[in-house]
């Protein structure tokens, strides 16, 4: 089933499905608003995700202002602070990272990389975006309702999420949050079915599963995981909405609030946490696996070398995806669940470190004896390796149940997950944008602005999150509006917090330069040509750049090899495209 080495393969399997050009839209609205072209939907998804991501960025500034300079800003009340924290987390995880990796990169790259004309269900794909946009608008609306957005923390744990002691709990903030999540999941499901079915059914002739670029493997596996994990969040949101609006008690035991006995009784707050983390842990890998896949391709292309251990890389993605469904309760070691669960979940959690480590080794072994071009995508890929290894290793503290006990719910956790699923995947997103922008627009992003963007982001983000581990190690809990000066602090954390906040402000500011670069280069960037990185995968072999609706001209490409024929001995160039029928042992004879 594997054929990763270039070999003579003139006997392509016959086409199973007829090649049908999807109908072109003729109206302006059909082309640019209600577009059914996956490439355009990808840009809509990415643009919306970036816009709401900017909101999350500003919220992170506001919360860092409070932590770094407590008392200096009167308008940051505890209520506001918790609203900032909650909205920042929720937007980043769901509405930015999930949306941009799957809705953005998934839509753009899957059809091009597998050699399809479009997603298999273009109309449903369009609906997916518009429901996502509606989910974002509902989320934004919660900033403008009385009481403001929910301040329940992104984990939304009941009972506090629906009670009056939490901002937005007794008003509409929490309701809009839950409705928005429900909409997001509906929208995602429409897109997700598309991505999965397109990979399984619409690959062009010769494109076997084991010839797919790792980008597609990452996005495909993440999509399948998301289709299995999001329903848990969906039902949890619906049940909490019932608790809040209809007076059911799924997650609500007998409660006394402000001396008043409430009408709830018999429910279980821990049941919500199980549902949430049954979604929430796969979610980490739903964000990480596309990043794993994309970064593998960035490293291979820019080091001019085949991905080392392709088959192992594919299996590692699949195994990580499967294992991530049986580790969720490592988020709940101190939740009050039965303590014996700790043995099981610590073991599964640490086992997942093994395939993850294999991926790291193979990235670095891809660099080994490569021809490393320090382009912007390569720099961001290197930044990813450092931050991912750092964040992954601190996961071994938190996954190892008893080590987690003193660290759980402290700033150490915040530092860990920001490093591993914040900074690291975002490094990949940036690298990927520098890499594929030329295909999307036909122009290169400005190099000088890109260099500033990389160095400030990479060093700045490390300066934010590395020291933050030690704030947690000292004992400062997370979600603290202010810590004061309790006696257990071995050294005051004020100075360190001010340093972290200053670095965070700078890192945030440089993203404005990146956005400027995106728009500036549309007009002023150097012309890129069709394949500026001399890459092998199919998206670089389109007849036009940017690719038109339908992607390929009259004929779909035929695929003769895997995506990693770089620096093949005897080849005329240092890369052989996937649709190039060159045969090595015949001295380059063309078929």
């Amino acid at each position, binding site marked *: 089933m594997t054929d990763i080495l270039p070999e003579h393969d003139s006997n392509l399997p016959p086409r199973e499905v007829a090649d049908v050009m999807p109908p072109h839209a003729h109206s302006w609205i059909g082309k640019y608003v209600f577009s059914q072209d996956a490439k355009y939907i990808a840009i809509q998804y990415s643009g919306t995700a970036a816009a709401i991501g900017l909101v999350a960025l500003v919220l992170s500034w506001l919360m860092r202002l409070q932590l770094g300079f407590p008392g200096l800003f009167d308008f940051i009340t505890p209520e506001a602070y918790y609203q900032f924290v909650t909205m920042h987390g929720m937007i980043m995880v769901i509405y930015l990272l999930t949306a941009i990796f799957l809705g953005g990169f998934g839509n753009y790259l899957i059809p091009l990389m597998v050699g399809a004309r479009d997603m298999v269900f273009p109309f449903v794909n369009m609906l997916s975006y518009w429901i996502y946009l509606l989910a974002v608008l509902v989320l934004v609306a919660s900033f403008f309702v009385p009481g403001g957005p929910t301040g329940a923390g992104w984990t939304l744990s009941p009972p506090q999420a629906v009670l009056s002691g939490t901002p937005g709990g007794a008003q509409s903030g929490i309701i809009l949050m839950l409705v928005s999540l429900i909409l997001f999941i509906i929208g995602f499901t429409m897109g997700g079915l598309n991505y999965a079915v397109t990979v399984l059914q619409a690959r062009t002739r010769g494109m076997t599963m084991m010839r797919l670029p790792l980008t597609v493997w990452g996005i495909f596996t993440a999509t399948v995981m998301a289709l299995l994990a999001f329903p848990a969040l969906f039902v949890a949101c619906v049940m909490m909405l019932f608790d809040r609006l209809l007076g059911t008690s799924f997650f609500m035991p007998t409660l*006394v609030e402000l001396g008043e006995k409430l009408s709830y009784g018999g429910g279980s707050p821990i049941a919500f946490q199980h549902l949430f983390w049954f979604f929430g842990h796969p979610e980490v890998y739903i964000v990480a696996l596309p990043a794993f896949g994309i970064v593998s391709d960035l490293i291979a292309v820019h080091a001019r070398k085949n991905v080392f251990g392709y088959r192992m890389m594919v299996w590692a993605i699949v195994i990580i995806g499967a294992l991530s469904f049986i580790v969720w309760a490592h988020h709940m070691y101190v939740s009050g669940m039965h303590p014996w669960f700790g043995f099981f979940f610590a073991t599964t959690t640490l086992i997942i470190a093994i395939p993850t480590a294999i991926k790291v080794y193979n990235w670095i072994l891809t660099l080994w004896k*490569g021809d490393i071009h320090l382009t912007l995508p390569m720099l961001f890929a290197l930044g990813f390796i450092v931050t991912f290894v750092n964040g992954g290793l601190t996961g071994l503290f938190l996954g*190892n149940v008893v080590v987690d006990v003193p660290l759980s719910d402290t700033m150490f956790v915040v530092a860990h997950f920001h490093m591993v699923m914040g900074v690291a995947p975002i490094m990949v997103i940036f690298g990927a944008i520098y890499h594929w922008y030329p295909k999307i627009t036909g122009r290169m992003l400005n190099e000088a602005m890109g260099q500033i963007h990389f160095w400030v982001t990479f060093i700045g983000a490390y300066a934010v999150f590395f*020291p933050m581990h030690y704030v947690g190690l000292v004992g400062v*809990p997370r979600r603290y509006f202010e810590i004061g000066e309790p*006696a257990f602090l071995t050294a005051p954390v004020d100075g360190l917090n001010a340093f972290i906040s200053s670095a965070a402000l700078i890192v945030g500011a440089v993203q404005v330069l990146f956005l400027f670069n995106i728009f500036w280069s549309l007009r002023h960037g150097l012309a890129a040509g069709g394949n500026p990185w001399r890459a092998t995968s199919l998206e670089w072999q389109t007849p036009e750049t940017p690719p038109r609706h339908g992607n390929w001209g009259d004929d779909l490409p035929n695929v003769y090899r895997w995506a990693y024929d770089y620096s093949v001995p005897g080849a005329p160039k240092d890369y052989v495209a996937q649709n190039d029928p060159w045969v090595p042992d015949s001295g380059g004879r063309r078929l």
Partner: protein
Amino acid sequence: MLIAVVLVLIVAGSVAFHLYSPWWWTPIASNWDYIDNTLVITFWITGAVFAAVVLFTAYCVWKFRHRPGHKAEFDPENKRLEWWLTAVTAVGVAAMLVPGLFVWKQFVTVPANASELEVFGQQWNWAYRLPGADGVLGTADAEWVSGENPLGVNPHDRFGKDDLIIEGGEVYLPVDQPVKLLLRSIDVLHNFYVPEFRAKMDMVPGMVTYIWFTPTRTGNFEALCAEYCGTAHPFMRGFVTVVEAAEYQEWLQEQLTFEDYARTASEPATRLAER
């Protein structure tokens, strides 16, 4: 080439920060130095791996940088090397997991001679309950909570009548005596967290959770809430004062039983003044 230098500096800077910065955990005051030891082992293993991986990456970036005429090697896979790396990783992971699980076994196994202390959380303060002369805590539930019965002790349970009710956020513990904390909340999630004791656990309304530890030195330790519980979460503080056995007995004598508490509580003016 700047990137290779920066990668080396990141490793050097991170190690230096770890070794020389003043931010480290607070000195321990319980038996859970096992946890600290496991944590230190984990720091050593992960620190070594981090340094090795990043330094090796830096070396590759420098050694195999693009130069005119330089060409990459075509090297798809190496089964032997991949299996070796997998095996070494598995051993490293086991070296952290196995001691971790041994300590966890201790962590969840409460010694038979542990005394009991109920910690009670509600937005946003702590209260405590100790078994009275009969040595047994009476049952309790949010169902029974009222002005005269803030902890919800079951008034029909004879074991509860002599329980000691301790409000005001501070509790005493005798040194070197294992204690099992029974954690209870009547509104939202809380988490009783004394950094010096290392142990922490959520309290969940509708159920009773527990942790145990042995205080190993006397002193006054601040208790924090470590599970987000609403707007005043960071201000939910309490104190645990660890004292010698004799002093502990003196303190015990000053505490009100549930019965006495209910009696004084029927005079609301006094209660309000006390609060």
